[in-house]
């Protein structure tokens, strides 16, 4: 026990900490500028100098460690004089332009000068003049205001791991710059903005639009973008989101944000938002898809924001009463005429648990069908159920911060730093803490974190993984803990020759990789969507499960949607009921029948792909789409579009008039993430609270559906999201007895108080797909960029400024072979379509791959990609889409 006295207060400490930390633990505030609790200590600004008895000079509290019996005084005449002197120096070059500085009011320098002075400077020379840099669309740099605390540089390098900025030059000429000196070429996390104590690095999104003290409300909620579920503080004035900031100490992201979370909020206030229900007036035609295509890509509103243009051609405005009774009437008629299986619903990984619960209840109770699915089917859902069938429910519900404490992280199938950026930071932290990063494939975001890479030839990952299992099972003893899996492992075998010859991997690299892998004591495995969407995905997932089992690791399944996990847990799948209970279980069906006081369909429903087929062949007559854009977010989107045109009655409930919405018979305006209460379940299966920050024009998704259900004579009486949550927690064994209050107290961590499903595991089914050979051909693959998510992000102006247009990425060799230059516009064609867009030459790519994002209207990868269905996981297989690239305009 160490006892120190700071300002007369006796403080007892278990272990040695710095004087500053000791003081803070006792609530004593020592002024600082370069110190920041998320950063390594630095000792640069000297503002925290304190008097320590028996020490000849003042000491910096942020670096000086306490010792037993130490007596410290933090506020004396001497420290005040010193601090005033330091601040006078800092003000030599500071422009004191507080009246036009957005930081004024929350500026640490301003506050300190207010407290310590000086009231007057003695410096007679001219101040340093540096023009404000407005070259970047997102970040403004004002180097006159900079005090060289280097917090931004240390954040960028030591925490974010982007190392995009540094101190340039030295002495009085020092300034902070990105490499180019002007525009940033970085991850745009904006964490430099968070830590800047002055107005030197600021966001342009809200420039000169408010003063920090004018903020009317601050709401803590959860990010709408990816499955990590970061806590956001949404700052509001005049019912408009002015700024999104992180909170230090928040559970998942602890004071950090990524570009989507911080800068992607502007879609909420977009002029494109739907404001009233719409009823179709234009006839639905199958013919003239080409001409329809052009309307699909037109902006739905006039520039002035009034409804017009495409909207008035296709729809008329309707009242809520009219729209709701129309939907109820039409759905009842179709149910009556064609029976329950002719109706299907698509739920949304962007909607809350409450929305999704009500949605599936509506489909099951009011429409009597299990035809409920979502885009989680394209990868996440099948992969998770496959893994859970081997290891039990909750196998992927691992705490994200656990990655930084792992001694090894094995990554496959997607760059975590772009799909789930804050999770990616934990992997970078693992490397910084001395852990090993092993990757199958090239991942740019981990490039500076000394990854051991094995990069097999495209579509030969399964042989490499077989090779890894073969070696591991000889190194590790099988324990019979999981006999089902071990039986499979015993059959897995391949030779090093195959790994060398087919995957083209050097034996030396392979052995080194395996030595590291097998010696790890606390490993984690991160699986991305590309693996889940690959040819033979179930076999690869088996191999990865085997590796996980043999090295005793933790599994993480990347998720690019905020509530992908929650939607599954709410039962928005054709084969599961809330609480992730199989429909086929008589017991769980009975349970919900008694709680919902209604008979439930016993037959498993259609998957989203089966729905598309059913729509195409005419057996599906009605579809209800909530917060999803299947025409855009499903592969082979032209076929999806044609299929949805074929549906007799299509209801789309969304915040924008999406590509899917334009095909609808009734469009219902919903509320966005910032406008409603509810909960999201992140990829750790942590349930977190969403809180309403601003008002919107639509209705909550659950409220719209409840209104329709009531109109159909069903009992759907809920007054708020909490009512629904309470019903969920009454009904679902997984969410047993949970309340909003519990969640707020941190009780949202899996497995809550619930009962995960432990029994009823089925045999491990694997589909051995025929391997694709890649001789000389180019294949289209999906790029998953950091800056976009699709329907939302392309309506967030800041993200569009950072990544403005679709590009096609090819390797330098491919570019050379086809003699394309960077930026040249080319035509990319597959069997099902072609688009023209500029080339980007990407050194990280192999010579068989062509990468395209699915984030831009009219130029999305899914318009060019056909797919197969993986028989076991029932996910879409996107491998094998051959592609040709040629000069545009030929």
């Amino acid at each position, binding site marked *: 026990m160490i006892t120190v006295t700071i300002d007369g207060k006796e403080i007892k400490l278990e272990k040695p900490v710095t004087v500053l930390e000791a003081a803070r633990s006792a609530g004593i505030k020592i002024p600082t500028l370069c110190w920041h609790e998320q950063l390594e200590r630095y000792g640069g600004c000297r503002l925290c100098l304190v008097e320590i008895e028996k020490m000849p000079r003042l000491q910096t509290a942020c670096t000086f460690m306490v010792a037993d019996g130490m007596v410290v005084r933090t506020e004396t005449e001497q420290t005040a004089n010193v601090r005033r002197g330091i601040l006078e120096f800092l003000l030599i070059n500071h422009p004191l332009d507080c009246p036009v500085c957005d930081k004024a009011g929350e500026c640490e320098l301003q506050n300190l000068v207010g407290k310590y002075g000086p009231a007057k400077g003695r410096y007679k020379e001219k101040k340093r003049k540096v023009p404000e840099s407005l070259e970047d669309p997102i970040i403004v740099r004002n180097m006159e205001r900079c005090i060289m605390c280097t917090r931004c540089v240390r954040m960028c390098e030591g925490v974010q791991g982007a*190392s995009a900025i540094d101190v*340039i030059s*030295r002495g009085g000429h020092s300034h902070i710059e990105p490499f180019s000196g002007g525009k940033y070429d970085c991850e745009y996390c904006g964490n430099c903005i968070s830590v800047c104590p002055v107005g030197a690095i600021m966001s342009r999104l809200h420039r000169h639009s408010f003063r920090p003290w004018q903020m009317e409300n601050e709401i803590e909620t959860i990010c709408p973008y990816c499955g990590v579920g970061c806590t956001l503080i949404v700052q509001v004035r005049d019912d408009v989101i002015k700024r999104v900031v992180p909170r230090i100490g928040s559970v998942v992201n602890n004071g950090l944000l990524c570009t989507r979370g911080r800068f992607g909020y502007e879609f909420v206030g977009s002029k494109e938002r739907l404001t009233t229900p719409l009823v179709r007036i234009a006839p639905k035609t199958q013919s003239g898809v080409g001409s329809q295509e052009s309307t699909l890509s037109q902006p739905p509103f006039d520039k002035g924001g009034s409804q017009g243009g495409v909207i008035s051609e296709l729809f008329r405005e309707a009242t809520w009463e009219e729209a709701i009774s129309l939907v109820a009437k039409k759905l009842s008629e179709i149910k009556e005429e064609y029976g329950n299986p002719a109706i299907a619903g698509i739920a949304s990984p962007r909607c809350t648990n409450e929305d999704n619960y009500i949605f599936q209840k509506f489909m099951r109770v009011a429409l009597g069908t299990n035809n409920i699915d979502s885009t989680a089917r394209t990868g996440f859902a099948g992969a998770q159920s496959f893994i859970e069938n081997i290891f039990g429910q909750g196998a992927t519900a691992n705490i994200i911060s656990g990655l930084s404490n792992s001694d090894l992280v094995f990554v496959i199938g997607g760059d975590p730093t772009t799909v789930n950026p804050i999770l990616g930071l934990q992997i970078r932290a693992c490397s910084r803490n001395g852990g090993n990063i092993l990757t199958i494939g090239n991942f740019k975001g981990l490039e500076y974190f000394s990854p051991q890479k094995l990069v097999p030839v495209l579509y030969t990952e399964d042989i490499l993984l077989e090779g890894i299992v073969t070696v591991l099972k000889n190194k590790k003893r099988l324990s019979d803990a999981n006999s089902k899996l071990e039986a499979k492992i015993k059959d897995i075998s391949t030779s090093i020759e195959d790994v060398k010859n087919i995957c083209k991997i050097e034996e030396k690299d392979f052995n080194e990789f395996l030595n590291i892998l097998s010696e790890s004591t606390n490993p984690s495995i991160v699986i991305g969507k590309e693996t889940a969407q690959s040819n033979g995905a179930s076999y690869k997932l088996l191999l990865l499960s085997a590796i996980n089992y043999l090295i005793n690791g933790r599994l993480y399944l990347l998720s690019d949607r905020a509530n992908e996990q929650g939607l599954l847990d709410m039962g928005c799948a054709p084969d599961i009921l809330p609480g992730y209970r199989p429909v086929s279980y008589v017991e769980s069906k009975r349970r919900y029948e008694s709680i919902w006081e209604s008979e439930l369909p016993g037959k498993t429903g259609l998957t989203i792909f089966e729905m598309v087929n059913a729509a195409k062949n005419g057996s599906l007559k009605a579809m209800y789409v909530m917060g999803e854009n299947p025409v855009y977010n499903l592969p082979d989107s032209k076929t999806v579009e044609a299929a949805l045109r074929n549906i007799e009655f299509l209801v789309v409930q969304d915040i924008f008039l999406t590509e899917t919405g334009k095909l609808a018979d009734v469009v219902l305006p919903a509320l966005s993430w910032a406008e409603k209460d509810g909960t999201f379940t992140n990829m750790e299966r942590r349930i977190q609270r969403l809180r309403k920050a601003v008002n919107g024009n639509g209705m909550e998704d659950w409220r719209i559906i409840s209104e329709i259900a009531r109109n159909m004579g069903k009992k759907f009486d809920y007054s708020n999201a909490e009512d629904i949550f309470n019903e969920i927690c009454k009904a679902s064994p997984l969410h047993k007895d949970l309340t909003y209050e519990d969640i707020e107290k941190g009780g949202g961590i899996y497995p809550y108080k619930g009962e995960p499903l432990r029994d009823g595991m089925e045999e491990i089914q694997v589909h051995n797909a025929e391997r694709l050979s890649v001789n000389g051909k180019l294949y289209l693959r999906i790029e998953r960029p950091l800056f976009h998510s699709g329907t939302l992000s392309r309506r967030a102006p800041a993200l569009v400024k950072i990544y403005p247009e679709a590009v096609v990425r090819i390797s330098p060799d491919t570019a050379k072979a086809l003699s394309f230059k960077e930026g040249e516009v080319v035509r990319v064609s597959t069997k099902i379509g072609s688009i023209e867009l500029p080339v980007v030459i990407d050194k990280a790519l192999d010579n068989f791959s062509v990468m395209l994002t699915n984030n831009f209207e009219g130029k999305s990868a899914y318009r060019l990609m056909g797919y197969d269905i993986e028989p076991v996981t029932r996910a879409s297989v996107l491998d094998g889409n051959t592609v040709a690239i040629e000069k545009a305009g030929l």
Partner: protein
Amino acid sequence: MLSKAAIKELNEIRQKYPDASAALLPALYIAQREFGYLGADAYEAVSDALGVPRAIARGVGTFYAMYKHKPMGRHIVQLCTNVSCMILGAEKLSDFLKNKYGLETGGTTPDKRFSLVIMECIGACGTAPAMLVDDDFYENLTEKYIEEILEKYK
């Protein structure tokens, strides 16, 4: 782009250091030699070769005044104008360079043959004035002597 030989040299240097950032200074010298000075291309080449982020490479490079930060002539004339050299006429020599060769302080001759850097003491106070041309040292300078010396550098 760095030449193959330069990349090989860089890789050899890299092996002498515990991590890539430690090898930055010598690597930047190689890049400076290859590119003539440290500009964006040079930093990018070093960054790619060592796997050090570009901004960090530039941050380190710009800290040191003895790297060349802009394009310079084939030969660098570094003239001392500290106290001893100044007393013994270094400033006149500086004027001479300007009048005869058009060499301004920090400037480069139009034919890109010479650049002039006014530098701090090179420890030749006993034989002042003194200068360096590239890595060669010259002392007891006079205008005539400078003419003779510079003839050797084409």
